[in-house]
């Protein structure tokens, strides 16, 4: 399905800095589970200091984005966040210096783990686990440059302006995974990147390719991207590594570069600030934990019936509490007018089924989630839904498709758990 890309708004602006917020709310949750804080309320912490970590299988870490005082844990939208009051002194701790070029694979993985590097596309899977192979061969290392969400251009800006950094990052990762080739997947609408990327091929001692992808939504979805690049149609839930594929997101590469070459833990990322109701628009370096209220105050033309969306307009989450922060998986913050719903009956137009990247029949989810018919929900393969929102975007009747999908999945989870 084609959707309006709205990227031109922020596509060709450079990445800029914005002032840090007076308070940070650092998310104490990651891919799975909760991070344990290792600092106390009232404690003074320096920039880059380790604040919390999880020691389970999916271990990852959270560092201070600025120096200041810890003010305890606050629950925002049902999730714990560590509040840090910025003293704007930027007193940083000394981190042991690395000689990144000479690092061994094991040492690189250790840095990724210590510095809290996570997937930046949304799911926030710990990166050191992703690259930690057990003798598997990797055929292709896919760089996900398909930012298929409208408005978002953060990855585009990185590819355009930080190309060398991204390549350095790729070369370091290649030391670990040794993929036979590296393929950039970028959308046709961004084909001007091809020449920029090609200029750096010479740095690599492995083959690099660029694959131009159609401008359809959701091209950046993991399964859709893998199909476009390798022709393999992986069922949902299967591990790309089992098919000798490793994927990484542009934002993740940037975080890896900062960790390996600038000795910086993951405390900052690039996001796009945009949206119909945003005044200040562009791509910005933003600290993890920056509450959206800070960005809203910088950018919004305040109006009635506005909403702030963390992430893209299709899959992002509308915040109810403006303290909600930018996380390591947030690619953008959008200020959008609330959409008005039409609310007609489903007219069986089939638009939703045609738009569905997973080739499901979303109207059936609406039908059977209402009656809580788990057999039908399963046989219509609700669990294959990737929650991309394409069906609800196109539905002319505004049938509550997403509500049914989430509700249906909840029912299924409960029945499976029983």
């Amino acid at each position, binding site marked *: 399905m084609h959707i309006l890309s709205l990227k031109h708004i922020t596509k060709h602006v450079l990445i800029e800095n914005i002032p840090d917020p007076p308070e940070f709310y650092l998310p104490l949750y990651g891919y799975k589970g909760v991070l344990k804080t290792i600092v106390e309320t009232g404690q003074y912490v320096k920039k880059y200091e380790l604040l919390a970590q999880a020691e389970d299988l999916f271990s990852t870490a959270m560092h201070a984005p600025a120096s200041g005082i810890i003010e305890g844990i606050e629950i925002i939208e049902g999730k714990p966040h560590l509040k840090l009051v910025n003293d704007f002194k930027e007193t940083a701790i000394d981190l042991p210096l690395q000689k990144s070029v000479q690092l061994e694979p094991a040492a690189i993985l250790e840095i990724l783990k210590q510095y809290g590097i996570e997937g930046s596309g949304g799911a926030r899977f710990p990166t050191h686990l992703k690259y930690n192979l057990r003798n598997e061969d990797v055929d292709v290392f896919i760089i996900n440059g398909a930012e298929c969400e409208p408005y978002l251009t953060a990855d585009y800006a990185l590819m355009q302006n930080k190309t060398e950094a991204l390549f350095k990052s790729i070369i370091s990762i290649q030391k670990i995974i040794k993929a036979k080739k590296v393929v950039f997947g970028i959308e046709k609408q961004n084909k001007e990147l091809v020449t920029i990327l090609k200029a750096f091929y010479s740095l690599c001692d492995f083959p690099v390719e660029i694959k131009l992808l159609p401008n359809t939504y959701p091209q950046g979805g993991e399964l859709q991207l893998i199909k476009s690049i390798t022709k393999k149609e992986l069922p949902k839930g299967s591990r790309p590594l089992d098919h000798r594929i490793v994927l990484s997101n542009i934002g993740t590469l940037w975080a890896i570069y900062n960790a390996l070459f600038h000795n910086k833990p993951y405390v900052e990322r690039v996001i796009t600030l945009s949206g119909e109701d945003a005044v200040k628009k562009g791509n910005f370096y933003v600290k993890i934990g920056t509450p959206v209220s800070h960005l809203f105050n910088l950018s919004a033309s305040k109006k009635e019936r506005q909403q702030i969306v963390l992430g893209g307009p299709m899959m992002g989450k509308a915040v109810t509490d403006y303290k909600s922060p930018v996380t390591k998986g947030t690619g953008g913050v959008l200020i959008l007018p609330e959409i008005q719903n039409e609310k007609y009956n*489903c*007219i069986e137009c089939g638009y939703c089924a045609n738009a569905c990247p997973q080739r499901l029949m979303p109207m059936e989810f609406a039908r059977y989630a209402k009656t809580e018919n788990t057999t039908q929900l399963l046989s219509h393969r609700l669990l294959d839904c990737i929650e991309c929102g394409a069906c609800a975007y196109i539905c002319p009747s505004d049938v509550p498709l997403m509500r049914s999908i989430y509700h249906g999945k909840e029912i299924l989870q409960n029945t499976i758990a029983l």
Partner: protein
Amino acid sequence: MNLNPHIKAKKNSVSAIMFDVIIALVPLVLAAYAAFGFTAIWLITTAVITCLVTDFLFNALYAKKYNSFLDGSAIITALLLSFTVSPLTPWYVVAFGSFCAIVFGKLLWGGLGKNRFNPALLGREFMTAFFPIMSTAAIWSTNSIRNIKDFHLFANDSLLGMYSNNLVFKTTGALGEYSMLFIVLGGLYLIIRKRISWHIPFTILTIFLCGTWISSAYDLELKYSIAGMVLGSIFMATDMPSSPNGYPGMLYYGSMIGLVSIFFILGNVRFEYLSYSILLLNGFTPFINQIFRPRAWGEKVDYAVKTEKIFLLTLAIITVALAIITLHYYDFIKYLIYIYIVYITFKFNFSFIKNIHNPI
């Protein structure tokens, strides 16, 4: 709280879809006016007003929805219904048909989008069942009231010229059938606007024309109106709620309509062959949707099982078609309509009314 997505496709609401269909139908109203003047306009207006009033009253009474009659679907039903009748049809018959189309064809199913059958065609069957005059040949002798006899865009002296003139304007048949050109243009407009897809009309017409061609090889002369076929396959068979919603399903559905209409014509169904075929396949649409469910991402499909299901479905459709030919022969179709009335009224009272506020 608002769930994702936070943007919507523009100009894509139900009323926008309905408006597009109306745009595609308006030229046919003009052609009807050219052919039969105010007689035609009067019938069409009767249908539109009856449909709107019925829709409003019923929705206000049962669903407490006061503006849903404005969604445009009632107007489309009215136009399509009036397009299937002869200009000589008495106005009260059209009013009756329009009323039944809306009530028994749409509202008793629970409203917009929930109907299993095409309301306009159902309304037409109601007229035939309750007014025997509708199935006589007399109602089609329209020469006496014709407004302008013919209209010649091309010189009429060659075969090609005559043929082309007939495509542009030809004053025989039902109210919507006078201009093949406008029908096709309307269809193309809807395809370009993605309101219908080419699959259904294309397969109906291909299979149908193949069928007539094969029959002619056996010296069977088929009596049909090609403009009526095109009108029906573009505007009636593609009605969203009553037709399948995936492309493979549409191809199957279209082919079966084409095939079954040949059967009906061979079975001496004189005027109703297309509406019978469409209504028959409407009844099978949910099964078609089930069997032709698209293969989900990464799913492995057992094609042997699928083929068997398609085979059985085809068998069922053909059996029902033969049954209908028999009923038609003995003039029993009206009893089918009576049974339908009882069935749908019960269904509404005991089940559909509970879901009247459910969007699906």
